[in-house]
């Protein structure tokens, strides 16, 4: 039994999109492992990895991941897939950013207009990405009146932004899912920039650091995620419901090839 249980720590977005509900049963059937998917914020997922409380991670916070690897907590980081972030705002667009070239430009305009920005502020992958964008725009939003942190997950933050008519950075999958049901009243302002890519990696937790870790299972899961069949499933997932796939398979590609 010891080796049959596998703890997968992942971000809420993979769980909420429903992708794992499709993949995990296939993996379990193939390998006989029983996967316990723990969907938490990227920060918490990484922390679990650091403490050896997870066997394998599926996360999307590249900078934090690099540090994680550098500190020796993980082994075999593999690129799995990506989708993208989009910059959303209310339809009346008070900061007039619609059609801005880059996200950084848009953020500058928002700052100048003192238009409300909602940040997840939860150390998630999205939050990390947002921080990067603000840095690129050379704006320090901390303590600004127009900059509000929700400390919440993507879905909740989207809801808050919709109610408060604010701008925010969101992942496309969650936006599509929520907008379908709730008609948020938020529109896509900026998209398609390579910087806005949201990249998922699978990382095995270092068994040398934590002997209790189920490394065999972790390896199997990592291999499963980058396998051809899995990548195919990823490429079609969500097509039917949203008209376009939610994730794009990237197994074997170099991160640089995505323009990161």
């Amino acid at each position: 039994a010891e080796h049959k249980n596998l703890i997968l720590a992942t971000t809420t977005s993979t769980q909420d999109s429903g992708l794992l509900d499709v993949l995990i049963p296939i993996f379990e059937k193939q390998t006989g492992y029983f996967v316990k998917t723990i969907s938490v914020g990227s920060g918490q997922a990484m922390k679990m990895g650091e403490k050896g409380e997870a066997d394998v991670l599926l996360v999307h916070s590249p900078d934090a991941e690099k540090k994680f690897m550098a500190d020796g907590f993980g082994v075999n980081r593999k690129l799995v897939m990506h989708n993208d972030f989009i910059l959303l705002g209310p339809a009346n667009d008070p900061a007039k950013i619609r059609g801005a070239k880059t996200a950084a430009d848009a953020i500058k305009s928002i700052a100048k207009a003192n238009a409300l920005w909602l940040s997840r502020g939860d150390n998630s992958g999205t939050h990390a990405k947002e921080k990067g964008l603000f840095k690129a725009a050379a704006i320090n939003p901390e303590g600004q009146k127009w900059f509000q942190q929700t400390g919440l997950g993507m879905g909740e933050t989207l809801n808050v932004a919709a109610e408060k008519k604010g701008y925010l950075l969101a992942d496309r999958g969650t936006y599509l899912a929520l907008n379908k049901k709730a008609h948020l009243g938020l529109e896509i302002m900026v998209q398609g920039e390579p910087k806005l890519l949201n990249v998922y990696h699978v990382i095995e937790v270092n068994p040398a650091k934590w002997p209790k870790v189920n490394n065999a299972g972790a390896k199997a899961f990592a291999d499963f995620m980058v396998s051809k069949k899995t990548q195919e499933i990823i490429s079609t997932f969500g097509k039917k419901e949203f008209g376009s796939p939610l994730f794009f398979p990237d197994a074997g590609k170099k991160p640089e090839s995505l323009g990161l």
Partner: protein
Amino acid sequence: MDVILEGFTKAAQLLASLDREVLGIALLSLKVSGLATLFSLLIGLSIGTLVALTSFPGKKILVSVVNTGMGLPPVVVGLFVSIMLWRNGPLGYLELLYTPTAIVIAQTVIATPIVMGVTIGAMQNLPANLRLQILALGATRVQLVWMLIKEARLPLMAGVMAGFGGVISEVGASIMVGGNVRGYTRVLTTATVMETGRGNFDMAIALSVILLLFCFAVNYILTYIQQRERPR
């Protein structure tokens, strides 16, 4: 285990340094949950006493409904209240969503059945003739309720604490209707959840230690007041 220790150390630090942000969060928690408990007391005690004292067809079902209300999941309450307060919802014009007021509303909804249920139970357990004795002493309806509450104060105290404890520690509704906006609607529990999500377990523990200290203080003061009124 180290994490827990770190958490306590952190809590001590935060308290010692009177961290402004943490202080603000704690006070908001207290204010919001205190108000919600107060409202639930006003509603729960009076209606609960009324239900306990009168008999009418369907009373049993009503009591079951109230007791069921004790199990209202905060998330669900949050969801319902959100839907009501949505800009396009029936009460949207009030523009209350993601304000502390919204949290107070949701928490009142959560605490009221708890207070009411415990009230009904406690009142029904008083000697049957006590009510008659109080009325015979010339009590108005309101005075009757008040005196009965005083007589049942021990179980009611427990009920109030269950209500207060329930709302100050609940997170689902606060997040949904409050939005955990920093410096505005962030309360201790939503902050705890956020810190947990960030993987800052020590900070999460520190916040909850502060929450428990608050609870304890409130409780101790209540117990003290109650015991002072009452001779040894």
